[in-house]
């Protein structure tokens, strides 16, 4: 046998870079690889269709007539006056004594002036003030031609105007009402995100654990433990007067403690081959009990106003900071799972633990890592929840572990391990959030909501399994 026939020494090609046949091979497999990519995408993220369907459904059933107020109403009225009346128009702006009407009046005045339309006055006050203003206008030489107000005041304005003969020719202009789904209003969408953010964060760790073939039942209790630790530490370090640094330290301590609890579960699983279900079931009870012990079963409220920055504050495009954090975490987790060594090892351990070990993967380290991350994510979830509610209580996070599992499974993660996508889990969490929010909007009773949510989860996963079978 001559040396030419032998496989090249392992590092020869690496130095040369791409072998010449590389281009050829590429060209040949390209069309099929596009198809492969498309089919992979739909099998990985098929639940996206379910999410979109739910969004369309709840949008359709929550469409309602919308009566603009405040600045939005001002825009509409300004447009109507500019379009419907000539240049010589004289406008009186009327509103009741409220912040919304005040915003409407000032905004409208600015808009009209910018369009070169004369504003003769602006009345924001009680009906008596408005009647007086109308009378004053009636006595003036050139009475107003248009009274601008919002729809809510229209009846009252017309009523007063009808009693003053000189204003008979004056028209009342109100903003145009239109139809728009309540579900799709930006404040509602932010609501959905806020409701789901804690579950979505803990579901990141849960997905990783499930992909290794495990499960983590302790995360719900860890949320409570984390919230109680954070609250207690803040209360000790100044209570409502606590400094930002103290709050940060408290939150960090809580997250780290939860991480250690996760590592402990991981050690039970990796070191003693304890089934993850049992190891984390035990830790679930321990963590919950400790949370009650620390707090004495009470809620902790001695927390400064500034602590809600994470849960309720907005720093970027009026998206809540917690939601920004969630998006950031999902981005990191996605890169970790799809592009990094660690991610490959996690899939390998879940797919075939023996093959992974025999390939030199440090299985113990991988298991410790995923359980540690799951604990830390639960700790972070607890901090976010405490921040949203501005308090810490041992009752937090009840059943959250099950919602996190549901999110992962809805997102296509297989409970037998080795398969799943983090982004799928985000989609799963959103599905849960959209269903809950949609039912709130349509006035479904909360007991009924549970029944429906359970059935939707079953239905969605069944649908997915049938689709995969094809």
């Amino acid at each position, binding site marked *: *046998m001559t*040396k030419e*026939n*032998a*496989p*090249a*020494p*392992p*590092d020869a*090609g*690496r130095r040369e*870079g*791409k*072998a010449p*046949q*590389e281009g050829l*091979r590429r060209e040949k*497999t390209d069309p*099929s*690889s596009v198809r*492969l990519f498309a089919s992979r995408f739909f099998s990985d993220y098929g639940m996206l269709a379910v999410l979109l369907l739910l969004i369309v459904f709840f949008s359709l059933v929550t469409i309602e007539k919308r009566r603009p107020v405040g600045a939005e109403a001002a825009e509409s009225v300004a447009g109507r006056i500019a379009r419907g009346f000539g240049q010589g128009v004289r406008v009186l702006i009327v509103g009741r004594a409220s912040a919304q009407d005040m915003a409407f009046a000032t905004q409208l005045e600015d808009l009209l002036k910018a369009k070169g339309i004369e504003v003769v006055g602006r009345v924001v006050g009680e009906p008596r003030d408005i009647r007086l203003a109308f009378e004053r206008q009636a006595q003036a030489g050139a009475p107003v031609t248009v009274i601008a107000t919002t729809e809510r005041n229209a009846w009252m304005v017309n009523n007063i105007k009808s009693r003053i003969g000189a204003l008979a020719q004056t028209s009342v202009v109100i903003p145009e009402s239109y139809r728009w789904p309540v579900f799709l209003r930006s404040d509602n969408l932010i609501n959905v995100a806020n409701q789901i953010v804690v579950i979505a964060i803990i579901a990141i760790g849960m997905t990783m654990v499930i992909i290794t073939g495990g499960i983590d039942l302790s995360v719900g209790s860890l949320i409570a433990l984390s919230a109680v630790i954070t609250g207690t530490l803040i209360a000790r370090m100044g209570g409502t007067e606590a400094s930002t640094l103290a709050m940060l330290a408290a939150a960090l301590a809580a997250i780290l403690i939860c991480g250690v609890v996760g590592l402990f579960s991981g050690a039970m699983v990796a070191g003693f081959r304890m089934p993850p279900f049992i190891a984390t079931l035990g830790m679930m009870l321990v963590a919950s009990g400790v949370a009650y012990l620390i707090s004495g079963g009470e809620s902790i409220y001695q927390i400064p106003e500034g602590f809600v920055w994470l849960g309720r504050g907005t720093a970027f495009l009026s998206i809540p900071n917690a939601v920004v954090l969630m998006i950031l975490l999902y981005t990191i987790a996605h*890169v970790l799972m799809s*592009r*990094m*060594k*660690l991610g*490959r*090892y996690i*899939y*390998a351990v879940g*797919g*075939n633990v*023996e*093959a*992974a*070990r*025999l*390939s*030199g*993967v*440090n299985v113990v380290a991988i298991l410790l890592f995923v359980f540690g991350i799951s604990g830390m994510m639960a700790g972070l979830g607890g901090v976010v929840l405490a921040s949203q509610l501005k308090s810490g209580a041992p009752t937090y996070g009840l059943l959250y572990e099950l919602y996190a599992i549901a999110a992962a499974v809805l997102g296509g993660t297989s409970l037998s391990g*080795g*398969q799943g996508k983090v982004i799928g889990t985000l989609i799963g969490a959103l599905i849960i959030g959209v269903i809950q929010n949609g039912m709130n909007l349509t006035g479904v009773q909360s007991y009924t909501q549970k029944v429906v949510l359970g059935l939707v989860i079953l239905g969605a996963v069944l649908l997915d399994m049938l689709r995969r079978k094809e």
Partner: protein
Amino acid sequence: MALIFEQAAPVAVMEGIEKTFPGVRALKGARLSLYPGEVHALMGENGAGKSTLIKTLAGAITPDAGIIRLEGREVTIESPKEAQQLGIAVIYQEFNLVPYLTARENIFLGQERTKLGFLSRQKERREARALFERLGVPLDPETQCRNLTIAGQQTVEIAKALSTGARILVMDEPTASLSAQEVEKLFDVIADLKAHGISMVYVSHRMEEIFRIADRITVMRDGETVGTRPASEFTRESLIEMMVGRKLENEFPKERAEIGEKRLEVIRLRRGDQIKDVSMFVRRGEILGLTGLVGSGRTELARLIFGADAREAGEIRIEGKPVSIRSPRDAIRKGICLLSEDRKAEGLVLGLSARENFGLPNLDRFSEFGLVRQKTESSAFARYIKELSIKLAGPEQRARTLSGGNQQKVVLAKWLEANSDVIIFDEPTRGIDVGAKYEIYLLMNRLVAQRKAIIMISSELPEVLGMSDRIVVMHEGRISGEITDAANATQKQIMALAVGVKSVPAAHG
């Protein structure tokens, strides 16, 4: 013998069987006829359509076209249940037994014997005893199946088939995990079943077995039946040629490389009952054949060397220097690799792609700051696809869907990339078809030509004799002998050592 069969009416006839799976035409008009009391070997390379044809008969797959006649009557077999009712039983390579149920409970699973509506253990026990007696195997019907040996479990499967009144018994690689004595036992059982007029379809890659027990042989290739002839009309060579469809010059293309100094040596290795004081070595450029009966400790020895199991005592030396190997990671770093016998359970992560499996032990070199550079990985893999002529739809094909030979090549590629130069093959050609086997042998030649050292664990004596430079035989956890001149060794010599007869000076001590 052939004449007798042709005079009798066939018990089963399959004709023009067609089956297309998405993207693959698995069967193109395959046929098979079976006479009463005949052992009918079904041969062919992997992917030739043997298992699809068997599954059609078993009702696990419904054919797209074709006729199945049982005792002259045309039938359709829509489910395994229907096949059972028609007297067809299949014993798959992976047994369908519930490990925590007893042998008796497994035999009567789904056809429980009852008395007044209640389960009757007595009836079942009596019947189970009768079945085991008939098979000549003294099994306790009350043993849990997980405590039975592979051979014991197989006996339970056969008993189960007989209890349903099967007239046709299909056996898929029944000897794959049996020891030599167990194989003999099985052949006795087969002879007995034959005498009772039961027809058997026998699938195996082991030539010696086929020629010992088969009455007729049907060869399949590419989904078609190439031909059926009495076994006596075949020779080993003509059978292989019919299977691969071309002439093979030499089944074992052994080429000797220059043998260098000791690459790896183990001294007085010990682990419980499995490995008792084993010393041996392998040199650069050498293929060391390691053989012995199943359970003699060959695989266990390989796992100790590779760090997959912990050793209780002993030393491992590389190039004469003692090294510490406590885990597969350590062994990989020292340039040792193991291609395990069970590729699906130990060699590959089936849910990952071929490329991802290839990268698994090599990610340290393919990544920067923990981030995998997929281009580097892909281009490295592309080289091995070409070098080892791995046949796949693309590097992203799931390992699960690769054929046995290509799975073996992906595992080999992964280890070559990891710079391994002590390569332990555990049953490298098990479950691999003839053509792919030949390629694996050529690869071994190339590897030793590159000064690598190979330990080849194998039960196939022709393979051991045909490919090794030196042969070490194990018996009950010890090395029972060494044959330094493999070229002139005989199967008899090896078998004597394997069963513990010391006719050749032992290597250890």
